[in-house]
């Protein structure tokens, strides 16, 4: 390992903030009881208070009320709960059809694919070259038996932000429920459920310097949702399983620490990266949308070079980034997001995703850009596609 690894893969996961750790600790060592009712013993009552305060914090961050928040083990569980819970509640009353976008993260995409295998109907909506969902296609694919539309707020790879208001409006008009996976925008890009009529939202703590293994699902009051995770009566009988109280408390602390000022700082890192790369390296393409983009994401294709070679060279110099190249993935499949925005394999092959977090600095950007400049010119020098 290096003295200092420069970690630029903050959409994969983030470093925990010490303040989050400090907030969680008492719930491991002092108030470690399970949450009990107000008729239980004092340590359990205190634990319950900690959990409910955390719920209040998450709720108010999106303009919801506390009883609309269900804690989960993360965004994957939240999305499974939303999609499968709504289908279970409505399949007999309304139908067995859902609509998702083609560039969803695997938590939604593979849930949809699996439901398809089980006989449910799924339509996959295309996106344009910037990754924005085709609203006309969305309208046309919603049927009488459609029960749910699940379209992400922000994309995990290219950072494109969807227009939630317009999607929510369409869903409202067509009388279908709307779920959005906000894992990569939550606490960075505001959502206000009192203004945007979205019914279900998946959120996660680990993308905002919170702990892993905890997330939440916002469920608008009155939304039909069958219990998906069977077990005890926790979370007002909406999710079985012992509550992760330290996790929930850490999640709430992470939300408090993700300030607007920090968002502006992430935007400055992102924009500085894009600016330097475009000014100093020829033959590059920005993947995603210039304006509707998460604060932390810069995804750039360096043409004529391959992504795994680049990430390996960067790793040897102490930088962590990711790529959409097929060579990088365990499955040897190129990024479905880059292919989804109409990019070919060549575009995915040389794509690098930089995602920034609290512990990055302008100096980190300078260092990675300098490294990339050298690596790209070195790899282009040996590329048969590059005209020297």
């Amino acid at each position, binding site marked *: *390992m290096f003295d200092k690894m420069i970690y630029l893969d903050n959409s994969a996961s983030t470093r925990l903030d010490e303040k989050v750790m400090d907030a969680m600790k008492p719930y491991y060592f002092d108030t470690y009881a399970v949450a009990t009712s107000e008729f239980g013993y004092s340590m359990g009552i205190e634990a319950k208070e900690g959990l409910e305060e955390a719920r209040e914090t998450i709720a108010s961050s999106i303009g919801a009320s506390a009883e609309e928040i269900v804690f989960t083990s993360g965004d994957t569980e939240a999305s499974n709960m939303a999609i499968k819970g709504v289908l279970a509640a409505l399949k007999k009353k309304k139908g067995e059809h859902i609509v998702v976008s083609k560039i969803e993260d695997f938590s939604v995409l593979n849930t949809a694919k699996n439901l398809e295998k089980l006989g449910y109907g799924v339509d996959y909506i295309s996106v344009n070259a910037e990754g924005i969902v085709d609203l006309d296609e969305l309208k046309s694919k919603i049927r009488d038996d459609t029960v749910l539309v699940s379209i992400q707020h922000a994309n995990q790879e290219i950072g494109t932000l969807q227009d939630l208001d317009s999607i929510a409006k369409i869903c409202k008009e067509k009388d279908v429920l709307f779920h959005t996976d906000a894992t990569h925008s939550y606490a960075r890009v505001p959502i206000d459920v009192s203004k945007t009529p979205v019914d279900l939202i998946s959120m996660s703590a680990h993308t905002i310097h919170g702990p892993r293994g905890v997330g939440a699902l916002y469920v608008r009051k009155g939304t039909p949702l069958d219990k998906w995770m069977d077990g005890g009566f926790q979370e007002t009988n909406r999710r079985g399983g012992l509550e992760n109280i330290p996790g929930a408390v850490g999640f709430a602390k992470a939300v408090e620490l993700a300030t607007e000022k920090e968002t502006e700082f992430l935007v400055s890192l992102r924009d500085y990266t894009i600016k330097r790369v475009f000014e100093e390296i020829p033959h590059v393409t920005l993947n995603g949308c210039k304006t509707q983009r998460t604060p932390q994401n810069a995804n750039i294709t360096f043409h*004529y*070079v*391959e992504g*795994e*070679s680049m990430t*390996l*060279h960067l790793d*040897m110099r102490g930088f962590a980034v990711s790529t959409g*190249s*097929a*060579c*990088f993935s*365990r499955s*040897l*499949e*190129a990024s479905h997001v880059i*292919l989804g925005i109409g990019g*070919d*394999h*060549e575009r995915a*092959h040389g794509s690098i995703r930089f995602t920034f977090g609290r512990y990055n600095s302008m100096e980190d950007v300078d260092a990675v850009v300098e490294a990339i400049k050298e690596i790209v010119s070195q790899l282009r*020098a*040996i*590329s*048969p*596609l590059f005209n*020297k």
Partner: protein
Amino acid sequence: MKFPYTEKVLEHFKNPRNVGKMENPDGKGLEGSPACGDMVAVYLQVDPDTHIIEDIKFESYGCASNIATASIITELAKGKTIEEAKKISWQEATDQLGGLPPVKAHCSVLAVEGLRAAIRDYEEKHGLVTEQEPTTVDVIRSRLKHVMNPMAGLDIVRTELVTKMEINDGVVRILIDLPSNHQFATNIKEEVLEKIESLWDVKEVNVVFTE
């Protein structure tokens, strides 16, 4: 910390041998495809009397396995006669590198194919191909093994994307199990044509997609 690559692979990846383009090569081979993944070019300079490979260069648009294998292959081939160099196998190259992750096999096979294609090119250009073999289904199959199935990262023969191959009187017909409007249909068709049309006795190639 454990990398999936051996020290030798990483060393060749960091400092690849014999890289670059060669002006006026005696033989040149290009394998792979930018549409589907990795690509490798091999250039040869061959002594016309002894048929010894005097100089060899490669270029790669590929991952670490691809670059490292191409690098070691140039080392293995340099100084050998073209007959000897033809026998360099993927296994030999992999062994020399101390092994490669199994999932990366196809990236490294490309490098070996690149060398063989360069030797074939040299032989064709220098009249060393004494008798031209007629194109059979087997010849077509082996050529199509160089066309990648982008969905799988393996070739279209092994992934059973090709469902039928026929040749009658120089007319080749290839059936591909994809709808013609599939996002990769055009890419795959172009590559199939490129691999088959150059065969000396092929007059026409029809690529048919299933609906």
